[in-house]
């Protein structure tokens, strides 16, 4: 039996963190309740974040889009700020769970769960997102790629909570791409996923590109070599194929109940080829 607390302010929440031993934070509950049911954790107290209104704010700070860690995925999808400035995150959230799960699950929860398959993580990585952590000592921000250290592990210290996620508005990209391969179209943990943001020059050459993959390593994987192969080159099948080969060499997937390592490796490369849809159609021809 666990006592359930419903703090309303950061102060109250940090107080609970300090005073209650064995406290688990209950955001959407979509990961926590499953873990509780399987006795993977046995907290004596739950801090439910339903009344932490400040954690559900989405704001444009000028330089950043700031999203409270308690924003639900549905809330993010409904946000004009997210749709306009960081559509790659919206594309990923559309594939997350189900409509009911999206009404409950939160951005912060997805990050702190830190699954290698987490759907928010590749988009936040390509956007160079930073996490803002709050504690009695104040606020601290660090890159999301530094925050998540392995499967299910972050560098959250005792007494710290994930407060906000900050995405810089620049550089701005014109192509925001996300694709997730799973065993079904919804309610499906990613077998492999890829987020990509690109800018193309007027002649169709790739001016800037960032890519990140989920479910092919201990955490989100980026492949600088593939980005180098694409930079400055046209978005054509030969270039994409070269980048895909580099990715297949680079990723380090495992075999598990959902897929073999070999399958994941192949799909990680194939997902790069899917960027061909953003190439200008050949003159007089039809886009493949």
């Amino acid at each position, binding site marked *: *039996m*666990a*006592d*359930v607390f*419903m703090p309303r302010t950061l102060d109250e929440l940090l107080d609970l963190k300090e005073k209650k031993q064995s406290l688990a934070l*209950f955001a*959407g*509950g*979509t990961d926590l*309740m*499953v873990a509780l*049911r399987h006795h993977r954790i046995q907290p004596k107290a*739950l801090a*439910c974040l*339903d009344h932490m209104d400040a954690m559900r704010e989405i704001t444009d700070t000028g330089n950043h889009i700031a999203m409270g860690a308690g924003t639900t995925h*549905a809330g993010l999808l409904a946000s004009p700020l997210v749709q306009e400035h960081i559509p790659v995150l919206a594309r990923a959230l559309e594939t997350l*769970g*189900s*409509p*009911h*799960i999206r*009404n*409950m699950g939160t951005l912060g929860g997805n990050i702190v769960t830190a699954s290698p398959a987490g759907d928010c993580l590749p988009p936040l990585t390509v956007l160079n997102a930073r996490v803002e952590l709050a504690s009695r000592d104040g606020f601290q921000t660090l890159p999301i790629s530094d925050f998540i250290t392995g499967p299910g592990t972050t560098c959250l210290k005792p007494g710290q909570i994930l407060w906000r996620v900050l995405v810089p508005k620049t550089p701005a990209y014109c192509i925001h791409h996300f694709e997730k391969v799973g065993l079904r*179209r*919804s*309610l499906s943990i990613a077998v492999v996923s890829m987020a990509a943001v690109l800018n193309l020059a007027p002649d169709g050459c790739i001016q800037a590109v960032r890519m990140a993959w989920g479910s092919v390593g201990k955490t989100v994987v980026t492949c600088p070599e593939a980005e180098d192969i694409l930079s400055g080159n046209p978005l054509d099948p030969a270039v994409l194929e070269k980048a895909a080969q580099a990715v297949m060499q680079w990723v380090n997937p495992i075999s598990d109940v959902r897929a073999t390592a070999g399958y994941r490796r192949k799909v990680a490369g194939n997902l790069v080829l899917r960027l061909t849809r953003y190439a200008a159609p050949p003159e007089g021809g039809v886009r493949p």
Partner: protein
Amino acid sequence: MDLTFSLNGTALTLDAPSDQRVVDLFRETLGLTGTKEGCGSGECGACTIMVDGQTRLACLMVAAQLQGRSVITIEGLDLTAQGREQRHPVQEAFVQAGAIQCGFCTPGMVLTVTDLINRSPHADETEIRRAISGNLCRCTGYQKIVEAAQLAARWKQEEP
């Protein structure tokens, strides 16, 4: 804890453990067995309920979260049980379309479709399938459930 919330339009106060799963509160404590538990991990949608106008999964909620909220379970749509002549239109659509086989997914499906039709009476097939993508059915192959939703949508559009 002392829990007070609105259930299917009526204010309710009861004493319940704050960490009791909502699906258990409904089924075991309140005897409202319309909300089903198919998986207990949010992956099937059989426990779909409405809280403050949004669909939620009762197997992933605890009692404390209901405090002060407005909750609808499938029993709230059971108009004939409430003495009315006709079924709720979405239930009627499911019956007419032949969209019920074993019936286990049906409460969650009906609530989800009701929510969809209320928000988006002109929903097309793509939108319908997306809306029910969190509700699994092992019997029907979904086709007749989609047709039931389309029928219910048509009726909603025709409402004066």
